[in-house]
Every structure is written in structure tokens, then in C-alpha cells.
């Protein structure tokens, strides 16, 4: 009996009427994987830096996230303290090892900060996004000790920091930036594209927030986008 793998590949080739060795087919595949051609990019997100950030905000709010903007990284802890106080939430946050987060002046607030992954007992978590996507108000988060994936899903309230300069128009720009970090053809263990807080409409198509993941998603945009190209 042949191994399932070889059997399946042989079946596919028989159905397609190919041997698998044809040079033009192999070239088609190699070229596509190497060049990764961009498809059709919606015009919606193709804006100058300021308009792009404005669209990101608008789209994220449409997906039921709340969004604010602060001028500098050192303003972030105070903004988080305000957000939690306004919503009557506990003044504690869980963060990863991201230097952009650990360098913030947490001690200037009354927030209790703990570090590491979540085991489900943390009401609030703070992550730093790799970037944002304006066309759909989506955040891109990358796994690792800096921003553990459990922080994105277990806490009730997820607060995500994104630098204004990292807000792209489209997903393709995010992939290009990732490749510059990880090399072409490699990926971080997990990339989470997050658009709004968790929800379900499984009971009578009634849309409810807070299914299994965070009930609220609060986005803090830091700084201004580079003033270039409009």
C-alpha cells in the first residue's frame, strides 16, 4: 500500500493530467511564491498619512472599538488610567516585555502593572500593535514575549497601543513590513488581525459583544503620522 501523501499527490496529478515535473508549471509556482504579486488594492485606504489615520479611527469605531490619540508615548499610562476609571474598571493592567510599553511612566499613575502572559485572571491587558490597517480599522499584533497572545484574548478589556506611523492603508503594506523583519517566506508564530471586540450573533442573529474574547477593545494611537506625501 502506498503512503497516503504520495497517493493523494498522484491522484491530483492524474486528475490534472500532469506529472508534476513540467518546467512551466514549476516556474509558475516558483515565480508566484517569490514575487507575491499584489492584487487589487481598494482605493479607500490609499490616503496621505493624516487622512489614513483618520480613516483607521473611523473604521475601528464602526467595528465597535473605542479610539483615542495621544501626542507622546509618555502620555499613554495616564490615558489608560482615565479609560479604566471612566468605565469603573479595576486599576490593574497586564503587559508583556515590549520595551515601548515597559519604558512608559506607569509609576506616575495609580495603575498596578504586572508582566507576562495571562492565565485568565487579569481584567485588563495592554498590548503594543505591530501596525494598523486603515481600510478596515484592523490592528495587527505579533506573538512573542513582548506581546503574549494570551493578552489578546483572555482579559475582559484589551487596550492596544499603535504608533500613528505604523498605520498602513492596506494589509499588503503590513506583510511587506513583516517580511523586512522575519525574512521572505517566514512568519512569526502568530499574527492576530483584530477588528473590534469579540462578538457573536449565534442566538437568533442578535449581535452581542463579548463572546469569548475581550468585551471591549480600546485603541490608543500614539503620535502623529510622518508629514510626507500629503
Amino acid at each position, binding site marked *: 500500500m502506498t*503512503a497516503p501523501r504520495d*497517493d*493523494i499527490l498522484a*491522484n*491530483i496529478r492524474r*486528475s*490534472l*493530467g500532469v506529472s*508534476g515535473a513540467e518546467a512551466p*508549471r*514549476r516556474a*509558475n*509556482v516558483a515565480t*508566484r*511564491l517569490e514575487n*507575491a504579486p*499584489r*492584487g*487589487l488594492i*481598494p*482605493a*479607500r485606504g490609499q490616503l496621505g498619512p493624516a487622512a489614513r489615520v483618520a480613516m483607521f479611527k473611523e*473604521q475601528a469605531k464602526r*467595528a465597535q472599538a473605542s479610539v483615542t490619540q495621544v501626542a507622546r508615548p509618555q502620555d499613554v499610562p495616564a490615558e489608560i488610567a482615565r479609560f479604566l476609571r471612566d468605565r469603573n474598571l479595576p486599576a490593574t493592567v497586564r503587559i*508583556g516585555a515590549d520595551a515601548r510599553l515597559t519604558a512608559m511612566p506607569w509609576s506616575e499613575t495609580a495603575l498596578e502593572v504586572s508582566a507576562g*502572559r495571562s*492565565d485568565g485572571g487579569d481584567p485588563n491587558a495592554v498590548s503594543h500593535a505591530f501596525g494598523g490597517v486603515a481600510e*478596515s*480599522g*484592523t490592528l495587527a499584533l505579533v*506573538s512573542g514575549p513582548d506581546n*503574549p*497572545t*494570551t493578552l489578546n*484574548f*483572555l482579559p475582559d478589556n484589551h487596550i492596544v497601543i499603535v504608533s500613528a506611523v505604523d498605520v498602513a492603508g492596506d*494589509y*499588503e503594506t503590513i*506583510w511587506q513590513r513583516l517580511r523586512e523583519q522575519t525574512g521572505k*517566506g*517566514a*512568519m512569526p*508564530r*502568530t*499574527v*492576530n*488581525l483584530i*477588528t473590534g*471586540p*469579540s*462578538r457573536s*450573533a*449565534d*442566538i*437568533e*442573529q442578535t449581535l*452581542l459583544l463579548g*463572546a*469569548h*474574547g475581550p468585551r471591549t477593545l480600546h485603541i490608543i494611537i500614539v503620535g502623529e503620522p510622518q508629514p510626507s506625501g500629503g
Partner: protein
Amino acid sequence: MTVHTTSPQFKENAHEALRDAPLQKALNNMRSGFIERRALAAAELPEFERLRDSARDIKKHTLQHLDLYLEAYEKKVKAAGGYVQFCRTPAEANAAVLSICKARGARIVTKGKSMISEEMGLNEALIAQGITPVETDLGEYIIQLRGEIPSHIIAPAVHLNKEQVEADFRRVHTHLPKDRVLTEPTQLLTEARAVLRERFLAADVGITGANFLIAETGTSIIVTNEGNGDLTQTLPKVHIVLASLEKLVPTLEDVSQLLRVLARSATGQDMSVYTTFSTGPRRPGDVDGPEEYHVILLDNGRSAMLGGEFEDMLRCIRCGACMNHCPVYHAVGGHAYGWVYPGPMGAVLTPSLIGVDKAGHLPNASTFCGRCEAVCPVRIPLPKMMRHWREREFARHLTPAAFRSGLRLWAFFAKRPALYKFATRIGMGVLGLAGKRSGRFKSLPLAGGWTDFRDMPAPQGRTFQARWAKEKRAR
């Protein structure tokens, strides 16, 4: 086939469904919402129609080179420290999952939503080995409590009303106070969240499906709104991905094109809440994530569909738009179809996977209104393929004798145009006169299947052919 099928009894199923009052109430709920939301999302994106072309072309290209993309994908998964197992049949796939679970001594397995798992009948296979599968998608959880299969590929419990869910929760969650209030969907959701949170944290293995697999990077992708799939795959020590061969796409750029049409077609969202890209297990330095990452790649008849008249069906990205827009699905719901995949996509796919002898009724359950093809994000010619199945069914003499003789009678007239014109004119005249007073028939001889559920309108004016000839002359 491990999954029990009632597809051969489609007609009986459909009759029962039409008389099922709670089902009809639930279906009434879903008829307009999905359609309106998709239409709005499509209208808001000027490039939507061209993105559908792009999505179709990407899938076509991938299927034409599927052997090579599978090899490239497998290489990348291994390079990232993951494992890939090719499985020809559901039995092989179940055995592969069980052997991974046993190696880890798994007792509780959490599951994200996976239609491949339904195809495999995996839950039964796990239970038989003393392993407890826990469905974590809210809809899947509800139907698991009821011992049912999904009635919709993205809204598995769409056939239920909240009162039914309340009764199930009270029956199963016996550790909670009896006097708690569970009348609103939000109370039901809160209860399910709390119950399932404990299961997420206790699970030994997490099993998810995959919306896409990326050859360029060896990545699997899940798309969810609840976040259940992410908790399923992040918390346990082992993550198993169940996918069928046709989930492959070449690159991150290609999957971005498909994502732009997927959520819009499914729920009318620009993007679903969580689109998660997973590549291999935990990396050095990681403080969370699975220690093992396995991909089970199921064929189950798909390799034989390539190169034939049903190849286009393999483009399907499982958005559910075809069933959301289908008048037959709206009337009878998903369970009547009798197997894993309902609606128009199921009517084409099910005969391919379990045989036209068992599922021959499904391609006949269509009015050929064409709405499914009109909304399909990858432009699958669903009505054309249902026609192919009808032809095969006829050629294999699987259709009933009365139907065949009726068709033969029709063919006799259709081959003789003058006689056909004459006979239809007489027939219409008679029916028109007989139904003149009320304009409709409450019952008709030989047409009880129609008039039991709705009136037959009485014909008015002249035949289609007569009008056609007249209007042609007038031009």
C-alpha cells in the same frame, strides 16, 4: 463514511421541515438580515466585483497547480517546526487525530469551528476513545448539547430559537442556580462564556479548522468573531489544524484578496473580528502558545474532483452566502439536506463526497433562480453544476419511474415544436378558464406537491412562445 446521512430522505426531511413551527420561526429570522448586510458591505466597496474576479482567479490558479503548492506548503510547515499528515479518508484523519491525542494522554479536547471535523465525524471518534470533545463556537456548543449537526456552515444554530437554547442550558448546566433568568440572548451568551472559559483552561489539545493555508509561509488561518478559535489554539499544549486540500492559496497577498470578499459575503463585515495567522509551534522565548503544531490534510474525494466538471466547486471559501440567498434553504433550513453541507454549495458538494446515489435529491432541490451564483464571492457556477448532477442522475437511472416517464412525455412534445405550441395553448386556455374566478388554484390533480403548500396561480393571457413571437414581430 462515518457521518450518518439522511440525504436520501431529502423529500421527507423537507416535508417535516415545512411543518416544523419553531424551525419556520427561526428561519423567518434569518431570511432578510444576511442579505441586507451583504448587499450593504458590497455596495460600500467600489472594487468589490473586481475583487470577486481576483478571488476566483487566485483559486483557479492554485487548483491548477495544487500538487506543487501542497509540496511547497508542507516544506514550510516543517521548517517552522510543525507536522503535516496527508489523509485520504475521514477514517485516516480520525486515526491521525486520535494518535496525537493519545500520545499526550489527552482527556479534554476543545474545538474551534471546523466543517472538516463534521465531515470526519471526529467527535464520535473521540468519544469512543474516552476523550471529551468540547465545541467552543457558541452555535456549535449549542448544537453539541442537542446532539445535532450544524444547519448552516457559518451559523450552526440558525435553526433554533432562544427558548430552545434556554431549555438546553437548563438541562445541561445543572450546577447553576435553578432560578436564574435566561430569557435574553445576552444572558445565554454570558452563561456559555463562563462555562466554556473553564473548558478552555482545562483542555489538553485544541483543534481548529482552517479557512486558508498559505504555501509561501506554511501558515494556517482561522477567521472568527467570537475569539473561541484563538483560545482553543493558544491555551492547550497541542494545536491540531484540520483542513482539506483545497484550502491552499499561494501567498499572503493572495489571501488578502480572499479576505476582502469573505467576511463581506458571509456577515457583511469588512473583516471578521479575529483573523489569525498561525505558523508552527511556540518559538524560543515565547511565554504562551502551543508546544506542538499539527496539520491534518484531508482529501476525501477532492483530488478526484480536479480536472472534471465539479472542479469549480473546490474554489468555495465557505462563506455561506449561497444558502443565505437560497429560497429553498429559506424554506426548509439546513438539516433537511441530511449531511454536513447544506444549501446550494452542499447540493453540489455532497454528491461529490458521498455519492449521487445517496445525495441525488439535493441538486434537484433548486429553483435555478441563480441567486447563489450571483452572490458567490468566487463565482462558482452552482446552478450549472446542479444541472450536471441531474444529468448524471438521469443517465444512471437513479430518478424515479414517474419522473422519467413525465420527462419522456415532455421530450415527445419538445421535439415537435408545432405540437408543443398547440398543446400548451390548449392547456393554458383550459387552466385559464377554470381558474378565472379566483385567479388561483387551491388544489390541482397530480400537483399536490405544489398546492399543499401554496396556491398555483392561474395562467393569464397567451403562452410565452406566442408573446415572444409577437414582440419579435413588433421590433
